[in-house]
């Protein structure tokens, strides 16, 4: 089958973002950007399905700036076959990304979309669900295990309190949780090979999708700063403090 994996270029997860002093947003200049960690897991899962012979072709789709090509190359170095970049300098919201992805799905007709459960910049956790809604497809969110059989996909989901397994009709949209897999390190030969794989560039207008933002960001501010407290020398003092706070047997 054919799989589409949407991927996003985001600030590297190890970095601590700084709020701009004028409160207009986050200062991303000169910061290392990476493939969103959940998307990396999604690509890895698609590649593993290809290695098992379940999947024939993996197409990456990214919506964002021209430089998102770097992240598409990373995904293709993991093992995806080709990419589509929908280029825009606008700040795109999940609903618009879902609409653009739907247009790509209508064109490419995949059997499965594997997205990350959330992007670590806007922390929305919406795009996969929205895409499933727009397509009228089933959805398997926060997946920690996928099994394909008989035109269905069984998805084990991480839910509050434990794990739930559901069975979805294909085509479907699933979103990856952290424990779905451990993405591989990309090797140099694969990075070089990925340079030759095709990236098709499009614009949102090509799909007739209006990406005017629905949410206006009025202000971005630092969260309240916690003051470092005191360090104590002994377990006695530590225990006494906890008891003072109401921790009792």
């Amino acid at each position, binding site marked *: 089958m054919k799989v589409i994996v949407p991927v996003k270029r985001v600030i590297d997860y190890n970095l601590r973002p700084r709020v701009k002093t004028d409160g207009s947003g986050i200062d991303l200049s000169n910061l290392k950007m990476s493939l969103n960690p959940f998307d990396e897991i999604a690509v890895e899962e698609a590649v593993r399905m290809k290695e098992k012979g379940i999947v024939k072709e993996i197409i990456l789709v990214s919506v964002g700036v021209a430089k998102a090509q770097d992240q598409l190359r990373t995904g293709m170095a993991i093992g995806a076959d080709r990419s589509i970049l929908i280029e825009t300098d606008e700040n795109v919201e999940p609903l618009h990304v879902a609409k653009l992805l739907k247009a790509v799905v209508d064109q490419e007709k995949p059997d499965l979309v594997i997205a990350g459960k959330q992007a670590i910049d806007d922390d929305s956790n919406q795009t996969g669900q929205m895409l499933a809604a727009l397509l009228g497809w089933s959805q398997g969110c926060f997946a920690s295990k996928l099994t394909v059989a008989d035109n269905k996909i069984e998805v084990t989901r991480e839910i509050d309190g434990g794990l739930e397994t559901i069975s979805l009709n294909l085509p479907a949209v699933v979103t990856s949780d952290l424990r779905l897999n451990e993405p591989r390190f990309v090797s140099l030969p694969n990075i070089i090979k990925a340079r030759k794989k095709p990236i098709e560039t499009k614009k949102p207008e090509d799909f007739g999708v209006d990406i005017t933002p629905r949410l206006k960001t009025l202000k971005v501010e630092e969260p309240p700063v916690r003051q470092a*407290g005191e360090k104590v020398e002994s377990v006695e003092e530590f225990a006494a403090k906890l008891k003072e706070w109401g921790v009792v047997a």
Partner: protein
Amino acid sequence: MSVLVLVDYNGDSLDEGSLSAITAALQIDSEVDLLIAGENIRGLAEATAKIKGVHKVLLADSPVYAHALAENIAPLVVKLAGSYQAVVASANSNGKNIAPRVAALLDSQQISEIITVVSPDTFRRPIYAGNAIATVQSADEKKVITVRATAFEKAAAEGGDAPIEAVDATEDAGLSRFVSVDLQQSGRADLSTAPIVVSGGRALGSPEKFHALIEGFADRVHAAVGASRAAVDAEYAPNDCQVGQTGKIVAPEVYIAVGISGAIQHLAGMKDSRKIAAINIDPEAPIFQIADIGLVGDLFEVMPELIEKF
């Protein structure tokens, strides 16, 4: 125009996050209706009718809604959404699963995990793992909102007397099917709502030590058990114990971090705790920068001693 809150529950009890979502909804508009959907949930509907401040309870009782499949619940919410200015849900695993599906069907850009209602169209929400707070204003006619439970007081479970109105069930979408569920039966306090949380990190070194030192201490002081991502990945603790950006967000009265360095992703899940206590062998560990009290020491020596003191 009133607000509709999608109420969630676990077994026979209401999800506490839904009570926080009701508080947020009441800050948007004084008229708040609840929707509760499931199979054989009359008793739960009666409990929700007693929540203070509720105008009306809509009860959708049908096998179609058992197990809260998004494909079946979303069309029901969309069908009822016509007369509401906003649809609100708790940002728990069901809310996160269902609300965006509802939002897309309503052509609305959802606002996820709000922490403040500034006005009926303006909200504050954390971004970048809680490293920044954005104030956003929605231009959508119908708002779809999920609420971070720890940011709002819970609505009082008693004091209301709302009428219950049965609503017709929508058809089974036939797209998905529940297979099984595997819930962790710990018998301990619920991590998301417990007043005291004891959390362990990778430094515990083994599931046995995690059990003896973290769970042992937690049980002693009737606390819930949390874990860092590293501890969960190393299988010292089950997935649903994970505290952090990608796990649960908690804000207990007291959070006790043992052998946790304090990575950004972990801090995002606990830095709004009222008091934070940390035990770590590394005096430079970032956790000490936010802890109200810190003890630099080897947890394998400290924890048995600490357990004895309670």
